[in-house]
């Protein structure tokens, strides 16, 4: 069973539907017991980093996620959910993340030419950096759907794919059982569904 963490951030309808479409049992939950039972966990998120990080800490879900990640349960963050896995974000100030991955979240504007539009929105091709079970059904160059204004920096150790947008922006990360996609696999057509399928299979192996 895939558990999608419900901490009051964003709309989980499409994400839930995408797991159902690949035949995975899926539940949306904030309960520790259910997260413990799950084969793998998705940390979703849209909106502002500070607000989301506060909600995770306020509900105690931050501790639960860290515990479960330490036990080896596959945990994947999507979009803002991926950014929350890092040590900190410089989105309007400096805010602490979960620290499950080394690196920080910074404005795209700092690294791209001024004639590039912000947010980075639309379909962009993946550039592979490192082999990962998450991308086992994906080809280099496959397009996925991005919507973001901040990106994960200083995280060379965990980057498995990037996308070119005036600079190489972190697209997907993996460090053992902790994974993340900056793009939205649930909005990336068949390519995205295959990435979710690969993630679900990582949980089934345990």
């Amino acid at each position: 069973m895939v558990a999608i963490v419900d901490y009051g951030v964003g709309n989980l309808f499409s994400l839930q539907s995408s797991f159902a479409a690949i035949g995975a049992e899926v539940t949306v939950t904030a309960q520790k017991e259910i997260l413990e039972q799950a084969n793998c966990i998705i940390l979703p998120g849209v909106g502002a980093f500070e607000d989301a990080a506060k909600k995770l800490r306020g509900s105690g879900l931050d501790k639960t996620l860290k515990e479960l990640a330490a036990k080896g349960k596959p945990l994947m963050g999507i979009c803002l959910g991926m950014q929350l896995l890092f040590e900190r974000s410089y989105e309007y100030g400096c805010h602490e993340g979960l620290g499950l991955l080394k690196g920080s979240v910074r404005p795209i504007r700092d690294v791209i030419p001024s004639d590039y539009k912000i947010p980075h929105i639309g379909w962009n091709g993946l550039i592979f950096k490192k082999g990962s079970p998450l991308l086992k059904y994906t080809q280099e160059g496959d397009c996925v759907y991005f919507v973001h204004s901040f990106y994960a920096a200083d995280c060379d150790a965990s980057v498995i794919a990037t996308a070119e947008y005036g600079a190489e922006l972190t697209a997907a990360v993996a460090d053992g059982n902790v994974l993340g996609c900056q793009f939205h696999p649930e909005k990336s057509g068949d390519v995205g569904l295959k990435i979710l399928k690969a993630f679900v299979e990582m949980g089934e192996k345990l």
Partner: protein
Amino acid sequence: MITKRIIPCLDVRDGRVVKGVNFEGLRDVSSPVELGMYYSSCGADELVFYDITASSDGRKLFTDILCETARKVFIPLTVGGGINSVDDFDRVLKCGADKVSVNSGAIRNPSLIFEAAKRYGDQCVVLSVDVKRVDGVFRVFAKGGRENTGLEAISWIKQCVESGAGEVVVNSIDTDGVKGGFDLEMLAAVCDAVSVPVIASGGAGKIQDFITLFQTLPKVDAGLAASIFHFGEVNIADLKEKMAQENIPTRRL
């Protein structure tokens, strides 16, 4: 490299696609869900559902089909039509829409864009604007293009982007339905004025019109059309094949 998006737009009334579509192999050619799945399988990069329902019963049918589409189609879904309040945003976002487009609602209530962007983020708010030349000036029209608001279009678009609109759909009334190509002059003026994605609408009649659009105006991010896709005059897979041949970045299936 970011790709240029191709976006079919479906007008929906009482839960059904308006104007018959002309496809072989679709069980129900008036079903927005089936048509959405079909377009997704052809390589459409995004779908726009435009609700032209007047009744509240019809609104419920619309949100039902939206939910069903979001269960089956995994590309971004933009919803427009009848969006007058933040509650309307809420209603369609809960059913799986990713972006919400506002047109007359923003003219009637200029704070709508700001309030919606504050709650859901800029990326969620799309300004849709119907523009027509009147005595050589670009003017904003309301009520489906029937009423001249007197607003000057470029300053209106700039104002909406400053309020938080994350994308702009520019529909040229002058070229709409003529099938003689997009309104390049109007689109160039908008691209020069704003730094958010611009989506061209109105005037496409054939594949070459999209090629000309993206080659002439590299700042345009997407091309939107309705009937030429519905009637099979332009096949999205063929269009993308041609874009690739012309070295226009495009997503291939």
